[in-house]
């Protein structure tokens, strides 16, 4: 069976500057991979390229998702195929009720897959069920998408969407930024509920503390646009002690 996600020797430029200098990563279904590294090492770039954010130019290498050429797909196509990016800074969309947004997005994905749109009663039932499981108050769903949400609420809204769309690959970009420890625990609980044999997660983080709550199977350390070392979950703890400096030098 081919891996869920295969990144091969990926080189990426942004405005003439190369950010990723040949990055490779293999993720199988059911696995949770953590990608750690200092600021500017290219972690977020990787997540954006996987999701298809504009303005990134891939100059070499490829990304295969379920054996298909991911880079040839539009971002909405990737979403319909099961790629989900939980944003570091989810955007606010004033005037659009969260509920409306969720339904529009879910049905757009279903339509792209050639499935029937979900009926309103079925949709409501599903949202209620999922939000109850994640302890998300109904009242949050009536508000504009992320408008006036606290940092914690925004992240929970990301997790809610993840649970609702049931993607096979979840990329979590700096899930912990801007969260206090309680909010972090709640968001991480939500993520853990979604761990599943058929689903893989790529958890991008600067700090080890997130990995106390979302325990990874593999840890990769990025520095200057490359993965410089990989290991099991104990690698994250080591890093906590030694810092990134040694890898910075190695990569230089």
């Amino acid at each position, binding site marked *: 069976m081919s891996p869920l996600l295969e990144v091969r020797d990926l080189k990426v430029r942004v405005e003439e500057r190369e950010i990723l200098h040949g990055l490779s990563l293999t993720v199988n279904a059911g696995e949770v991979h953590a990608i750690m590294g200092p600021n500017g090492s290219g972690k977020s770039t990787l997540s954006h390229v996987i999701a298809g954010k*504009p303005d990134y130019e891939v100059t070499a290498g490829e990304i295969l998702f379920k054996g298909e050429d991911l880079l040839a797909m*539009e*971002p909405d196509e990737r979403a319909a195929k099961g790629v989900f990016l939980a944003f570091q800074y*989810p*955007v606010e*969309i004033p*005037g659009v009720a969260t509920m409306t947004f969720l339904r529009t997005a*879910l049905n757009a994905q279903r339509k792209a897959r050639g499935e029937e749109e979900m009926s309103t009663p079925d949709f409501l039932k599903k949202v209620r069920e999922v939000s109850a499981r994640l302890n998300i108050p109904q009242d949050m769903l009536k508000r504009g998408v992320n408008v006036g949400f606290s940092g914690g609420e925004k992240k929970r809204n990301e997790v809610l969407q993840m649970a609702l*769309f049931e993607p096979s690959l979840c990329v979590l970009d700096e899930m912990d930024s801007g969260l206090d420890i309680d909010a972090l625990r709640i968001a991480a609980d939500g993520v853990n509920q979604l761990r599943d044999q058929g689903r893989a997660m790529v958890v991008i983080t600067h700090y080890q503390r997130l990995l106390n709550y979302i325990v990874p199977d593999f840890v990769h350390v990025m520095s200057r646009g490359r993965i410089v070392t990989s290991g099991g979950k104990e690698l994250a703890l080591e890093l906590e002690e030694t810092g990134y400096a040694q890898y910075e030098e190695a990569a230089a």
Partner: protein
Amino acid sequence: MVAVQETVDQVRQIDVDQYRYGFETIIESEKAPKGLDESTIRFISEKKNEPAWMLEWRLEAFRRWLTMKEPDWSRVKYPKIDYQDLHYYAAPKQKPGLNSLDEVDPEILRTYEKLGIPLREQEMLAGVVRPEGERRVAVDAVFDSVSVATTFQAELKKSGVIFMPISEAIREYPDLVRKYLGTVVPTSDNYFATLNSAVFSDGSFVYIPPGVRCPMELSTYFRINERDTGQFERTLIIADKGSYVSYLEGCTAPMRDENQLHAAVVELIALDDAEIKYSTVQNWYPGNSEGQGGIYNFVTKRGDCRGRNSKISWTQVETGSAITWKYPSCILRGDNSSGEFYSIAISNGYQQVDSGTKMIHLGKNTTSRIIAKGIAAGRSDSTYRGLVSTHRKAEGARNFTACDSLLIGDTCGAHTIPYIEAKNSTSVIEHEATTSKISEDMLFYCVQRGLSEEEAVALVVNGFVRDVLQQLPMEFAVEAQKLISISLEGSVG
């Protein structure tokens, strides 16, 4: 790729094809010769079979117009209009004195059918069981310079409501018309209103008697068809004490290379405890992708809250016209009266919009509320211009204004020019304004969730205008929503 640049390019390519109402009806018509002098006015007045006082009124306006100068203070640019190169009257040839819809030229009926405007009451009533509580809509259809059909007149008359072409009202209810015509927008008001007073041809007249709640929505559908023709309609709505009416106007025109002038005047009068809700869905031909053609929409709309506790509410969705120049306003004369202005102005291609409102607080404890949303795309330019004025005796006057602009791309412009005059220390005036761009981040967030880029723009724009759309009567909110999508087509599905 999802880049916003691509959306912008697509929006820029807005093409004549996307204007779905641009067809022309081939029909024999009777026109006044080109040009404007006293004989033109006599011609129009005679065609309309008007009483002498009406002709005098027109001539007086015309003489004043000759002494006036075309205003140039708005933020719009257009070549000088040659007022002698226009037809001031055009009417489909028809038998005089139509008795029923069956006598209306079938070509005209087909035109309105194509536009989706139901004129045949029979068809509207027949067959389909209507959901409980759904309200019917009475339509006055104005084709070039004349009203061709007004539906449900008989039924409305039962409740005492008068809804008819203004040309008929001048003959049938001269006292009412004389009492109110020109009392809100005087013949001397401004260049275009004065011109309208001299040459207006048709429009709607509405009178709601005391204590009557108009049993259905009233609407007028304006269609410019003829070439080189100006449309100068005049609408007069009077809500007598304690009455209520909701009125909607819609407008379309064929696609033509030349610009056409539309200079209308709308006057609303609300007496004690009366309420008028006036909604506009304006979709005149906006011109092609090169900025050629399109309607010059130079309109004066004003409501007078003449009585105590009266209320006038303007709601407009403006997507058409090459140039829009209009400021639906409220004079809050009666104590405790209130005025509202809700507006969505969408411009694309080379459209220019200079629009807003005036709220003139004269009475005590008068309130006004302004919510204006401007969306500019392509190479268009959109200006909100507003005046809130509280006079010396307007104790306790209150106003709240919010103007928000949304820009799509970087070749369009949005401007906000609010004037505030407070001559009374007890008045409270609030003004909020924002300008934002549909950001790449916002679009990317939506497409990452599976929406196509067009769906994403539509979602963001609909969110942006939501609080104004909610003000439209149910029947028209859906139409307006569709129109918004069409106007931004290329970026919106």
